């Protein structure tokens, strides 16, 4: 049965959010409490002080399991970085560089671009591409990521991740919503739906983008058939950080306050007259909107950070950069935003992988490592799950002439590496193993559904229980799959 026992409760409370609860499956009580809090309805559990809210702990009794993580910072590398040159060291591949790939790598396989039997492509035998053993754990990470090497002991690498799709948009949807098609809720939306928000003044799911928007477009952080309050809200680095946030020309804050007061006065009158609880909600939303007009710019204002912090992240205030987004991510989880997702475009290296990879790594290495260090020093890493993913990996075979400088790697769905840090995962751990050439998986495979099930588990959610009935069937993030990878949980 997908009808949760909590559903009864929700129907009793429909007074306020009648549509919202019409089909509520979810973690139920917890989500409800959060929604009421988030929308500031006059229910008993409505602490007004945002500070108090940001420090609120998840009520563990309401989760399916004791949660290990409270918040998520999810970094998605759009286009798919070459995991073979970054995280999954393959000396055998280097040795056999230039040899035609085994038939079974090519025949009967679907490859996006490669059309003729390709040759194997090893990581270049150059100093900057070498893999060093890092930290206590001795995990090998490429020298292209010198800063990440310093925090290797915080990370679990999933070297046996795999997916079903090998084209960008469907694979992104697969990774981020559990379905290759459009129109399903994204992982952030599910999390928001299951756990709600902890900050009255900010959305529960925030998205930050560098470079072009990914192929899957806004659907990558959409709410699908879930109530739209759960969709990711993009905080932009150009123009208004949130659409329509700033007042139009000729209206300043004081004036805006007066207009919101007038709107709410008239709405209040209407509420008394009609007694439609939706009006009460709308009144609260106008107040929240007004508060967001100051809380969001305050959040985006990174100048206030110390010089040391800026140096650590490599941030430059006022500019749009991945580093700035990493720092913003910390500021967001500090303020109780449940799910922060960073997208970075430019990893789709069909050509010149050895030229382009170092450049991209330079952009992200320092800020990601800084984020992990910073969360740790602030005591936030234990309750914040930091995730690195991409829609798939890249082939151990070269695309184009492997002897040429501009050789690249094609899309590869059968084995790639994702990683997680903090939030209840093991420190300095490697899970899963790809074969000696990095083509398939030989140990502990982790399907996208397993990956997502594990994330949900760390948040205290049973991925099979968090469902929503739509078109006559209960849907969940993991479709009909998903096994929690217990081995990576600390």
């Amino acid at each position, binding site marked *: 049965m997908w009808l949760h026992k909590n559903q009864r409760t929700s129907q009793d409370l429909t007074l306020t959010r009648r549509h919202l609860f019409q089909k509520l499956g979810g973690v139920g009580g917890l989500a409800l409490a959060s929604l009421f809090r988030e929308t500031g309805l006059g229910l008993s559990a409505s602490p007004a002080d945002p500070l108090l809210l940001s420090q609120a702990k998840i009520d563990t009794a309401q989760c399916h399991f004791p949660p290990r993580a409270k918040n998520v910072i999810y970094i998605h590398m759009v286009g798919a970085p070459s995991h073979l040159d970054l995280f999954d060291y393959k000396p055998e591949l280097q040795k056999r560089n230039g040899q035609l790939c085994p038939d079974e790598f090519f025949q009967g396989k679907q490859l996006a671009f490669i059309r003729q039997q390709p040759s194997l492509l090893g990581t270049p035998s150059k100093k900057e591409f070498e893999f060093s053993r890092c930290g206590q754990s001795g995990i090998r990470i490429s020298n292209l990521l010198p800063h990440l090497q310093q925090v290797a002991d915080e990370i679990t690498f999933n070297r046996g991740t795999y997916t079903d799709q090998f084209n960008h948009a469907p694979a992104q949807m697969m990774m981020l919503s559990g379905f290759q098609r459009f*129109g399903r809720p994204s992982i952030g939306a599910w999390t928001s739906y299951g756990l709600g928000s902890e900050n009255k003044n900010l959305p529960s799911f925030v998205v930050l983008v560098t470079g072009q*928007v990914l192929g899957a477009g806004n659907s990558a952080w959409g709410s699908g058939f879930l109530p739209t309050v759960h969709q990711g809200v993009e905080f932009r680095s150009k123009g208004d950080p949130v659409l329509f946030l700033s007042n139009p020309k000729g209206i300043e804050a004081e004036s805006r306050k007066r207009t919101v007061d007038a709107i709410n006065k008239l709405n209040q009158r209407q509420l008394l007259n009609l007694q439609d609880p939706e009006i009460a909600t709308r009144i609260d939303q106008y107040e929240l909107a007004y508060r967001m007009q100051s809380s969001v710019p305050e959040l985006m204002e990174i100048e206030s950070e110390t010089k040391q912090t800026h140096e650590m992240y490599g941030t430059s205030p006022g500019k749009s950069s991945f580093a700035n987004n990493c720092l913003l991510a910390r500021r967001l989880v500090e303020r109780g935003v449940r799910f922060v997702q960073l997208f970075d475009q430019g990893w789709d290296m069909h050509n010149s992988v050895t030229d382009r990879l170092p450049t991209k790594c330079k952009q992200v290495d320092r800020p990601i490592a800084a984020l992990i260090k910073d969360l740790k020093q602030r005591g936030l890493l234990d309750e914040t799950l930091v995730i690195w993913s991409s829609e798939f990996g890249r082939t151990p075979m070269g695309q184009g002439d492997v002897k040429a400088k501009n050789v690249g790697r094609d899309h590869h769905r059968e084995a790639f590496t994702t990683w997680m840090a903090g939030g209840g995962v093991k420190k300095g751990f490697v899970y899963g193993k790809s074969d000696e050439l990095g083509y398939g998986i030989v140990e502990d495979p982790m399907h996208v559904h397993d990956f997502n099930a594990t994330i949900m588990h760390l948040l205290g959610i049973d991925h099979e229980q968090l469902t929503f009935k739509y078109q006559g069937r209960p849907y969940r993030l993991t479709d009909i799959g998903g096994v929690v990878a217990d081995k990576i949980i600390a």
Partner: protein
Amino acid sequence: MLNLSKLFSIVGLACIVLQVNSIGDEIDFDKQIKPILDSRCAECHGSASREGGLRFTSRDDAMVELDSGKFAIVAGDPLVGSLVSRISSRDPGEMMPPDGKRLTRSEIELIVKWIGEGAKWSKSSESKHWSYVAPVRPVVPAIEDSAQLRNEVDYFVAKKLASQGLKLSGDAPIAQMLRRVSLALTGLPPEVEVVKAFLRNPSEEKFEQFVDDCFDSPAYGERWATPWFDAARYADSNGYQADQIRESWAYRDWVIRSINQDQPFDQFTIEQLAGDLLPNATEDQRIATGFHRTVTCNVEAGVHPEENRVNQVFDRVNTTGTVFLGTTLECCQCHNHKYDPFSQEEYFRLFSFFNNTPVEVKLTSGVSYDFYGPKMDLSVDEKTKLKRDSLIDELAKLKQEKERIGLAAREKLDDLKSKLASEVQNQITWTPLQILNFSTASGEAHRVLDDQSVLVGGLLPGTSRYTVDVSNELSLVTAVRIEALTHEELPGTGPGRGDVERPNFILSEFVVSAGSSLTAEVDEFEVIPLDESFADYSQKNWEVRKAIDGDQKTGWAIGQQFFKDHWAAFRFKAPLKLTNSNGRMRFLLDQNYGRGRTIGRFRLLATADDVSTLGVSDEIRNILKLEKLNAGQQKKLDEFLSKGQPELLKLQSRISVVEKKLEALKPPTTLVMQEMDKPRETFKLTRGDYLSPGKKVKAGVPAVLHSWNKELPDNRLGLAKWMVDPKNPLLARVAVNRWWASYFGRGLMASGEDFGTQSEPASHPMLLDWLAVELMESGWSRKHIHKLIVMSSTFRQTSQSNGDLNSRDPENVLLSRGPRFRMPAEMIRDNALAISGLLSTKMGGPPVMPFQPDNIWRTVGRNGPKWNAAKDEDRFRRGVYVIWRRAAPYPSFVNFDAPDRAACVIERPRSNTPLQALTLLNDQAFVEMAVALASTVVSRFEGAGELRTQLAYAMQRCVARVPESDEVDVLQQLYEVELSRLTQDRAAVDGLLRNNKAVSGNSIAELTLSERNHLAALSVVCNVLLNLDETINY
């Protein structure tokens, strides 16, 4: 390998089968079999679960092919189906039930006998879910106190209310009622004057007249098309990564037209599913098939066109199921439906109907795919048509002419192709020419190097002419070549002399003359005509041909590509034959640019080879390799071939002009469905995977629904006609329910997209059936049903609630009060545009781009036009005409729950968020509307009129009713504070009014200062009014 337990079980089985004949009378299913199935099997194979594709809910379900491809029961043959062997097996991996108590021997015997007798099911056990039985018109219930009731709808509703001890609330106040009706029917508010006139003398007849006027308004179709477009997932782009814009707005206009004309819903259905297959299909009927061309299409590099096609057909089947049958078929893509009586095989039988349209993705070049599928030209008006026809004639004539004089060019083309083919084998051999004498006009020093290149040094004059005499051993010369070479002694290594950092040279003129022998006198030499020039590289504006154009001011240069060797070759117009070998040639190298831009080291060479292909650029070479050329490539080739044929060039430019004119008059197109000549075979796809075809299936419809009339054609048209058969239990119910949901905010069936066994029961099942039958018997008239609804007392109730109703009927399921809910996104825009007086009533045509913030319309994809916010009336068109790009839908619509239209949506969520508040408060589009509303108010009173009257009028435009005095107090207070602020802040006034153009026909700039301040303060008040909950609810 057969293990021991299996062997035993088979031996045992045979014994049972031999014995069963001895059991007496025919099996009674209800008494003997059903209890076994219910108690032992139903947990995994019952109505709630369908493990392995098997369940025992009906005979059909039990006999259907399993997910494994086997059958559990084959009637009459207990040993063939897997059921008997599974229940008698002792193998833990095989036996059923897998745990718990095993079936007794006598139970197994009963089942064996029952299957042997044909596995008969009793009728009573086969009762179908209500929605799969065709509706029969229910009797309208009798109600004692019927004074308040107006039509049949009310009787059903009142009956249900009475059963809960409730009754209908009274009518809403007239102004609110007119507003509700007007918005519900047209998506636009009533005119203040119309409401006023009505209030002076209200009557039921006048109300009906008002309703009829709404039905007659073209705005009706615009309003009702929107929910249909959500269901039909209509958008203006392809979706996915590329998300190109594509033309199919004619379908959008067709839907609006069809709804306005009250096209019967059955016909509306047939034309969208299969208009193309109707005999003598009209243009409109073909346009209607755009319904199923709205599916998304992936043209990402690396896409597999067949996979994309199969996904599109899946979408067509699923959308057809949801929109017309209220049924979720998607589950059956991979396995038998877990809950509803649809099998995977039946899914693919439906799939077969849609499996005959062409692939819509095509590899166009390299790894680049394009959207590609049947589309049709729309007809154009007579004048345009005549103009087009005459242009088409003219073009044909010009092309004929070109053909005629182009014969030579074609021969040239064939010749070229064969030469290019042989060129690969025959590399051109260049022979260095021996230097006999070198002199310069300006006295530079020089040295002849071993390779016969000349290195120039010493004095650096501004300009120079090199005269080079050479001897030539070839008896035939077809072309000569000059190499400009680097040398370490040259500044920056050269090849020019003038500058260390920019060692360029300019070869102004290059002249060759020749004599037939070594002894010939120079003045006997003849200048050799050169007809083509080539170079490895030319600086922009200094192309190599300028070295032989006779103009000393122009020339060949190599700027930006310094420090490298370069070459230029010049072809002789006619090959030079030298009767004696060792003929002499003289080269003049004029370098007139100045500042020492002369060549530092050069070498001269000649060839006797065929150089006719020498000037063929890489671009032309690549074009020649293509099978089919696009317009641009054809033009390039034509230009190349017509070199030296000026009349051809002229003709070509005339052709281009005509083609351009034609392009401008090109009729718009729209996407349509089109059957292929030869239908595809359809296979059941294992686990829905297009690479794993299983059993072949024939087109057909699900058995649980009404039967297929044998007369119907075996194609989409047959399916469409089957769909609208009055025996269809779902179509009419699903349609009226969707309409009801739009009027009341909730359907009679809460899940409009699912009428299956897992759906919540209908709140008013009798009313649903009554309306469904009424729809069919009224000739499928949409307007008839809509009118029944809006004329009913149920719809006209006041939406005032109270604590009692809120607790007894919190979601208004019982309809104890009038509907009240937030408008859909487009209506919020349309309503505000109408209130403000800005609304454009222009209908149809290509989609429009109103104002939206920057950085939204990202060109994630290809072919994305720029977002240029319209400055004319298109800025104020209704929401239904706003361009719908799936990757970047209009942001204010998104904030109010509009879907991205990537997939069919029956019911939009209705959220209530701070982003909505921000949109209405701050979106420039709504701010412009607020200022426009203020202008409209000012115009109405021509500057006069008491302030409170103006404020009340502004509010009345928003909510239709006359505001109460305390409401006007709130507005007045705000106005006064704002006026004093704005009076002191000129910049704020200018800022607020900046985008608005006119008041009473006068431009804002012409207003007096106090008029401007008044307008600005009033605008702030109007901003409030457009944000009221009452303004965005109806």
